[in-house]
């Protein structure tokens, strides 16, 4: 009983910490830069995403949330999977922009995979070409508020064909 209470408290503490300071990693998987400059604009003084405790990190091993743009070109696919695997659990992926959602205008091009969720699991979709900074903030904040629910779906095992399957796990 005491053991459970302790574990429960630690879990709640971890979730609290995660929600209050999620570190994000930005990866461009073959985007046109439109979404990327809006992500940067979101981090700069006018929109200031840092007031939610969100900080841009350089390394996947430090990041909790992967902000991913672009329609996933064949060259970038393996890199995207590798970066996703390098992130520690629990990890979340936010697909930003029309291309990241479905391929956008590049859907069906010979070199693109038509969206992030074809390659790795995605937890939040932010539409727009490109989405406004307000939309990005809204998407990220919605993702964070969904984390306060005790069991959120995440996690992953890459299967043989390079795709990753989702399974439920608790935070």
């Amino acid at each position, binding site marked *: 009983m005491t053991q459970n209470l302790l574990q429960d408290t630690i879990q709640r503490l971890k979730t609290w910490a995660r929600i209050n300071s999620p570190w994000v990693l930005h990866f*461009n998987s073959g985007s*046109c830069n439109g979404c990327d*400059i809006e992500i940067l604009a979101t981090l700069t003084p006018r929109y200031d995403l840092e007031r939610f405790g969100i900080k841009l*990190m350089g390394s996947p091993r430090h990041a909790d949330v992967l902000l991913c743009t672009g329609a996933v070109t064949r060259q970038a696919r393996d890199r995207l999977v590798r970066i996703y695997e390098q992130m520690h659990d629990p990890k979340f992926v936010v697909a930003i922009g029309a291309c990241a959602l479905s391929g956008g205008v590049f859907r069906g091009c*010979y070199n693109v995979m038509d969206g992030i969720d074809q390659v790795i699991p995605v937890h939040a979709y932010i539409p727009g070409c*490109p989405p406004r900074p307000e939309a990005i903030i809204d998407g990220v904040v919605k993702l964070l508020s969904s984390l306060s629910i005790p069991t959120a779906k995440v996690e992953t095992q890459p299967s043989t064909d390079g795709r990753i399957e989702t399974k439920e796990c608790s935070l």
Partner: protein
Amino acid sequence: MMEKKIMDETFTVPIGPQHPALKEPSHFRITVDGEIVTNAVVRLGYAHRGIEKAVEGRNWIQNLYMLERICGICSHIHATAYCLGVEQLAGVEVPPRAQAIRVLTAELERIHSHFLWVGVAAHEAGFDTLFMYIWRDRETVMDLLETLSGNRVNYSVNILGGVKFDINEEQADAIRKGLDYLEERTNHYLDVVSNDAMFLQRTSGIGVMTRNQAEVLGTVGPTARASNVARDVRVEAPYGAYFDYPANIVLEERGDLTARFVVRIKELFESYRLIRLILDTLPSGDLETRMPRRIKEGETVCRVEAPRGELFYFIKSNGTDMPERIKIRTPTICNMTSVVKLVIGHQLADVPMILVGIDPCFSCNDRMVILDRSDGYKQQWTWEALRQHGIDYYHEQHS
């Protein structure tokens, strides 16, 4: 003996495709001897989406939106180059008011792009305060673009045969007010990049490209102008409203990173001047002319000055409502060779700064090239063949 062996060893540092210093995917292999770079190899193509092939399967109007999304930073100039080419093929004359609005938007885009670049370059130098201040001020020009077109990034100002929106007096006043603020801030930033002692240590004398080198390496745009090469399409071969509103060329002599900062910041003043002039003397008249659905058979070449340098479009029509071939050469691919050359002999820590110095845009420049040195090579790639080639290529790379 042992010591000598260690001295001779070189080490290869892989950078990218995901790296804190790169906002876009590209891969560099930097060979270093201690801290000094001895060789650099660049591998492009992570953002290759197959646009040139995709436009062959869409009609002239759809392509406008496709080509606008080659690059999110210079979207307007891509659309302008395409429109100018197609209008030339169709033999359509665009009304002067539409031409002026195109140039006005192009100059606003140049302001936003240069501000963006100065910020990102300051970030690479470790000067995050400047990055944050510049991006705060950049929001002014983003607001102006939004007031005009309704969009912050892909403005969709151009349509074939004209432009989509007009400018009223109220918007003109908003632009003038915004420019006054930006001009004041730009003076301050010019002072910072040319006088701040800490910043000068990261830029002064780094990545020096002589005028001769700049010409031999085929650099374009502000990178060339920072080495005193007078190369600006707006001046050399004016297009659209640049006949009525001539631009002045901005040159610097030193050819180092400081010069590249100064050239771009001084170009901002030129853009402010042009925009004010256009607003004061905006010709009246229609915004568009009628365009035929099918474009006459023929081929044309179109050059415009993008924020990063000369942008080149080759457009070939076979008389249908779809283009037969569109070839795009973007400024970054011209400037990329200079990076590989210039980093040699510098410290590894200067590599990101020298790379950023050309204002690289990888989403623009990733094209597929087939090298076949045998004579008489002729092959038309079909969509299926390209797709299969792509899949096979990456399987090969992966295995």
